[in-house]
């Protein structure tokens, strides 16, 4: 297989993988309003646990890690997702109940760095700064895949998993549970007054999102065979936020579009450009500057994203669908088109 296909399928893999990651962050931030600035930490936990479970016992491998059970592919991925959920419970119990937006963001971003610091320095856990490597490729033995045929195969597997998770996520966001999440996002006090347990629902949302983060992370280590601390500096969380905001907060299709634009076109494609001689890394630096500027421009000019959140009609109210010219604001804060009156309470907040 020629090199070009190798690149193409790598891009396809990251497209699907960031689609999964963005859906996880969307349920937390886009649907429930939890500003999870430690998201990449949850991805990393899922990745490490998935990898460490797939690897055989660490004795004699030259690496140091816990677990090492040699579990087969989908089992370790599921456990990786659950490990990430475990972290979510701890985080939620300590910080979610006590803090409002800014403080929560500060604590979470610090948490992300401390997780990084521990994994980087404490070698017996996940091999310190070297990270895990030589993680066995799933199904490689059974299907007799070579290194070349593994890449398209695993990109397809990721696509199937992403489609499955998308189906589950759209069931969740359409359900009454999804409406509760959005009510909390729009106004916690109102949701509480209507008898919704805010903390309990935020915890649920954290758990669902963290599972997606863990699975997305697990797929990364299974795809590349290695994972180390340089892959998840706290700034990486920003990339997932960029996917979310560019694609359209609160819309699962938007996640796929955002993943295509940000992750595939802006982050992974420039990595294949030849380096400028004498200036190693300059392309990546410019690339990051560009992503930062794009994100700010997007927030200013099109805060609802490329694919805006759909207007949800509450049919049970039976009100005619005549449009009331409300200056609504989608979760992205869009200067709005007219919004049907009955959803105005749920999905719109006025600009200041």
């Amino acid at each position, binding site marked *: 297989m020629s090199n070009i296909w190798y690149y193409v399928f790598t891009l396809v893999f990251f497209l699907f993988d960031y689609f999964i990651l963005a859906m996880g962050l969307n349920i937390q931030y886009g649907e429930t309003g939890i500003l999870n600035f430690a998201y990449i930490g949850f991805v990393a936990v899922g990745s490490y646990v998935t990898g460490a479970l797939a690897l055989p016992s660490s004795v004699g491998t030259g690496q140091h890690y816990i677990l090492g059970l040699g579990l087969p592919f989908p089992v370790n991925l599921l456990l990786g997702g659950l490990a990430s959920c475990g972290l979510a419970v701890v985080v939620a119990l300590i910080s979610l109940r006590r803090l409002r937006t800014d403080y929560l963001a*500060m*604590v979470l971003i610090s948490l992300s760095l401390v997780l990084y610091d*521990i994994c980087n320095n404490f070698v017996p856990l996940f091999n310190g700064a070297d990270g895990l490597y030589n993680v066995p490729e799933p199904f490689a033995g059974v299907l007799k895949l070579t290194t070349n045929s593994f890449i398209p195969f695993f990109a397809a597997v990721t696509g199937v998993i992403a489609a499955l998770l998308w189906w589950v996520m759209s069931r969740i966001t359409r359900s009454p549970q999804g409406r509760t999440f959005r009510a909390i996002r729009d106004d916690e006090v109102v949701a509480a007054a209507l008898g919704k347990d805010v903390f309990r629902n935020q915890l649920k949302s954290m758990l669902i999102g963290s599972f997606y983060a863990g699975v997305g992370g697990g797929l990364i280590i299974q795809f590349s065979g290695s994972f180390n601390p340089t892959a998840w500096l706290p700034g990486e969380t*920003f990339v997932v936020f960029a996917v979310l905001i560019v694609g359209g907060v609160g819309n699962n299709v938007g996640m796929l579009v955002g993943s295509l634009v940000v992750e595939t076109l802006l982050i992974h494609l420039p990595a294949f450009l030849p380096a400028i001689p004498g200036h190693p890394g300059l392309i990546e630096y410019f690339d990051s500057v560009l992503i930062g500027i794009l994100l700010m421009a997007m927030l200013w000019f099109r805060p609802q994203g490329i694919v805006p959140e759909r207007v949800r009609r509450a049919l049970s109210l039976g009100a005619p669908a005549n449009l009331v010219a409300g200056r609504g604001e989608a979760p992205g804060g869009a200067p709005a088109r007219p919004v049907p009156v009955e959803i105005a309470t749920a999905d719109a907040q006025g600009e200041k």
Partner: protein
Amino acid sequence: MQLFWLSVGFGLVTASVLAISAVGLSLQFGITNYINFAYGDFMALGAFITYVLNNEVLHWNIWVALVAGSLAIGVLAVILNRLILSPFARRFSKSFYVLIVTFGLSLVLLNIEYSIWGADVRFFQMPIDRALHIGPLLLTKYQLIVMAIAIVLMLGVHAMLKTTRLGKSMRAMSDNTTLAMTSGIDTKRITTITWFLSGTLAGLAGAVLGITEGNLTPASGELFLFVIFAAVIVGGVGSIYGAMAGAVLIGLATEISAAFINPAYKLDTAFVILILTLLVRPAGLFARPGKA
């Protein structure tokens, strides 16, 4: 015991740097009510401007370069606030839009710094001098100067807040912006001045961080930002005096633990103190009502 006193000395120096930076962050947070995640990059930029003026062009005296670097960041902060942050803050009522914008600004500034100066570690060339014994402590001349700067600045900020018209307006705005506005305070002007002060303190803190640690990379400001967060939250967000107290506590705790446990886990000590504070006193040691 000698190790203990040595680490206390280092702790006081770290506390000085932390106090300057934490007060700068708190001043701005008190007025605008959102956290500036680009603060660490302001610090690194201030340190780099100081470094360039001192080492590469002009070869100014380090303290002159430091003042120039700090003021430059003050001006930059005002410009960024006018062009980017305050339009976003005015347009969107929810604070997380501005938070994400400051996060984006941080990414842009960090990578501009990387593009210009690269990822190599730079070293402030300070003349080597003998450490002085002050009581049980052992400190160099530069460490003493940094501590003196911090003490003078803290007293200055205190005097400004308590006695001047500007300070009173700032405290009024921090309590209630709308009420301050209706009382005839020019809130826009106060916001601009606050950003200038916050930026100047950030630049200064970044430069003294570079001087006390001796080395400098574009990422050093961002790493330090998390320690500042710990100091600010432990002290009580938005409270200037809390930020000072938190700085001393976190500064001493991180350095003493570094001496006795493992320097690699310095940051984690700060985080553990942060978590314990959240569990026992969620709004911080010097909580201000209505801010948490």
